């Protein structure tokens, strides 16, 4: 793609009050004994850049396929643009307002990129006129395939195939664009361009539903996210809200013995005298940052505005922090804490490493730290 954009693209402003473009109501899909999607309720609103997150096998692609009418739900309903797609006529009309790539793009391998896009135009019921031909060329230009537009699709590299898939999704200027792992096979420059493109689409009023496990990417472009695990919806909301919930205060101590004591005090207080405290846990220090003698920091999960109250709380128990600073959560940590993350290998975040998660106490930050403290005592 010939886009030139800043490497870091700010997420478009959220339009949380918009009309619901896609809604799933109690959506379930069963394959024999396996529940791929379980009672899913999603709301994607107009103007959202909505991230659908989840480890492999969490039901993301199954949900997208049901949305596109490729597979049928076992139970539940899907509403697109305000009407249920179980009505065939509405589904057909609604799907013409959607551009999508699901998993790897599928095209006719012996046809050229341009011919394939003309085929997509036919499928999307775009008129066979000069305007459509111009639109095809415009999209080829946009995704950087114009010089190779006449080459057979089978001769394209993986990245070029992905670009053509994105082009096909954009072709009919849809109201809703569904992108399933759109940066697969793209080089770093291509990833940045896709990110910029998504932002531009959102600013133009297009709603984007992005499925990915590249959490860093999602955090940068999405306004709202839903997190799935094993077909269940674990969380849904605005990225800023979710990140606020996972931000906190970092405390460093000069005496390593104070680390478990501080964590224990914070955890006890979370349930009583400090209800604003969601939990606490050990965090390894950032590379290059000050390293307390204990080697780890204690994280208090709360709004940074409570930093002084935390300090006072610890002081009442005779514990004095040598350092107090703000801790910015990121989507990856939130995701890992929420999904348990065992066996998962999401893309590394630039800053913090994940908090240790103790088997048996997975899924909650408090559980994780409780396990860690038990381990420390042993």
């Amino acid at each position, binding site marked *: *793609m*010939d*886009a*030139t*954009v800043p490497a870091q693209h700010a997420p478009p402003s959220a339009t949380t009050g918009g009309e619901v473009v896609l809604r799933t109501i109690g959506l379930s899909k069963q394959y024999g004994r396996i529940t791929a999607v379980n009672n899913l309720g999603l709301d994607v609103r107009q103007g959202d850049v909505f991230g659908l997150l989840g480890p492999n096998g969490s039901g993301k692609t199954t949900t997208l*396929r049901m949305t*596109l*009418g*490729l*597979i*049928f739900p076992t139970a539940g309903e899907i509403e697109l643009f305000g009407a249920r797609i179980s009505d*065939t*006529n509405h*589904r*057909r*009309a*609604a*799907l*013409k*307002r*959607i551009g*999508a790539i*699901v*998993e*790897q793009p*599928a*095209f*006719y*391998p*012996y*046809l050229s990129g341009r*011919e394939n896009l003309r*085929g*997509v135009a*036919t*499928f*999307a*019921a*775009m*008129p*066979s006129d000069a305007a459509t031909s111009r639109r095809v060329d*415009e999209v080829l*230009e*946009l995704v950087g395939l114009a010089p190779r537009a006449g080459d057979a699709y089978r001769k394209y590299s993986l990245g070029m195939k992905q670009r053509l898939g994105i082009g*096909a999704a*954009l072709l*009919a*200027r*849809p*109201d809703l664009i569904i992108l399933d792992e759109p940066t697969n096979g793209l080089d770093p420059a291509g990833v940045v*361009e896709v990110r*910029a*493109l998504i932002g*531009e*689409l959102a*600013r*133009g*009023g*297009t709603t984007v539903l992005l499925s990915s496990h590249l959490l860093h990417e999602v955090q940068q472009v999405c306004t709202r996210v839903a997190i799935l695990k094993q077909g269940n919806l674990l969380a849904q909301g605005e990225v800023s809200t979710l990140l606020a919930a996972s931000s906190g205060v970092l405390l460093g101590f000069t005496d390593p013995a104070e680390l478990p004591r501080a964590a224990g005090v914070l955890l006890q207080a979370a349930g009583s005298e400090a209800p604003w405290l969601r939990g606490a846990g050990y965090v390894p220090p950032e590379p290059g940052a000050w390293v307390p003698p204990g080697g780890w920091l204690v994280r208090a999960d709360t709004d940074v505005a409570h930093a002084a109250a935390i300090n006072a709380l610890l002081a009442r128990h005779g514990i004095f922090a040598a350092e107090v600073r703000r801790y910015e959560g990121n989507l990856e940590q939130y995701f890992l804490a929420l999904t348990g993350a065992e066996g998962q290998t999401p893309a590394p975040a630039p800053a913090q490493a994940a908090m240790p998660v103790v088997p048996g106490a997975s899924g909650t930050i408090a559980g994780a730290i409780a396990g860690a403290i038990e381990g420390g005592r042993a």
Partner: protein
Amino acid sequence: MTPVNTAPVTASAVGTSSPIAWLLDTWRLTRWYLFAAWRRVMSKVLLGILLGLFVLITGFIVLGFVVTQNSSTVARDCQPVPAATQQAGDNGNGGQVVCEPLSAQQQQQIRDQQADSIRAPLTFPGSLQFAGGYTTFMGVILLAILAGAMIGSEFGQGTIRLALSRGVGRAQALTAQVAALAVLALGIGLGMLLLGALIGVTIGPALGATLSALPAGGVGALLAYWLAVSLYLFAIAAIAFFLATLARSTAAGIAGPLGYLIFELIAIGVLSIVALAIQGDTGDFLRHVPDWFLGQNLGALTTAAFQPLAAAVPTIRGGATGGGNGGQTIGTMHALLVSLAYCALLVGSTYFIMRRRDVTD
């Protein structure tokens, strides 16, 4: 970044609910499937094989004609001679055969008969039957291969998702595919019959044949023959369509119809043998089972459709009617109804399968 108009525009893309709009969209899809089929290398190779073999066979017939006409020896009139008058030429079985030398006139007559027989397939309208017969054999095989590849690859390459996720209905996609196969069948049938007609009015007369006038109602008969040949092609392609969709596989789409045709051949042979051995009512029943086979009915239909034209072909004038099996004749209406029922069953079953099936990789 290149300035791009990303504003959603949907008015032109939605609103295909009227039946006419649906039909127009379906016709556009049909044209797309035909375009995609034509752009396959396989299509050109198969067309090359179809035409090349036809030209080759025509060439062999011409060669056979030339060789026969230039041959100096003509079969002699040999007849058994009563024992009392035996003089020479013991036939090795105790009796004797005497071959009388033929007169020049008789030799010429035999040569003319041979010439008529050899050049009949190259002379209009016998050339139509030659082209039609070739098409219902080689054309059927090649179209089955193309149809299997066309439909099977929609699933194998995942391109069916491309259509369905853009709002193309399942029934609409299937209708377009069926229509594409029908157009291909009609096109191949027409093309081959035109080729046959061209050969019939050029090569036959060049070899000394006299063109016969079409019998009364000949144009209607030509049309009926074209439709019968096309139905033959379409029905076998419909097997490919059904099996490729059922198995979501190109291999099944190609192997299925060919396997079915082979199955019919074997089944007819086995049933005839068993019917002969059993005799009685059961034997009679078994002998008539092939009357319900698709290939048998299609064959009977094409043969019956050619009958009005056969009167103009010297060598088959008053010849056999019906495709039949083991000397049995299948009625034209029976053949037509059974053939159409098979087509309806195959297409209907395919729609039924696709109606609620999940489309996955």
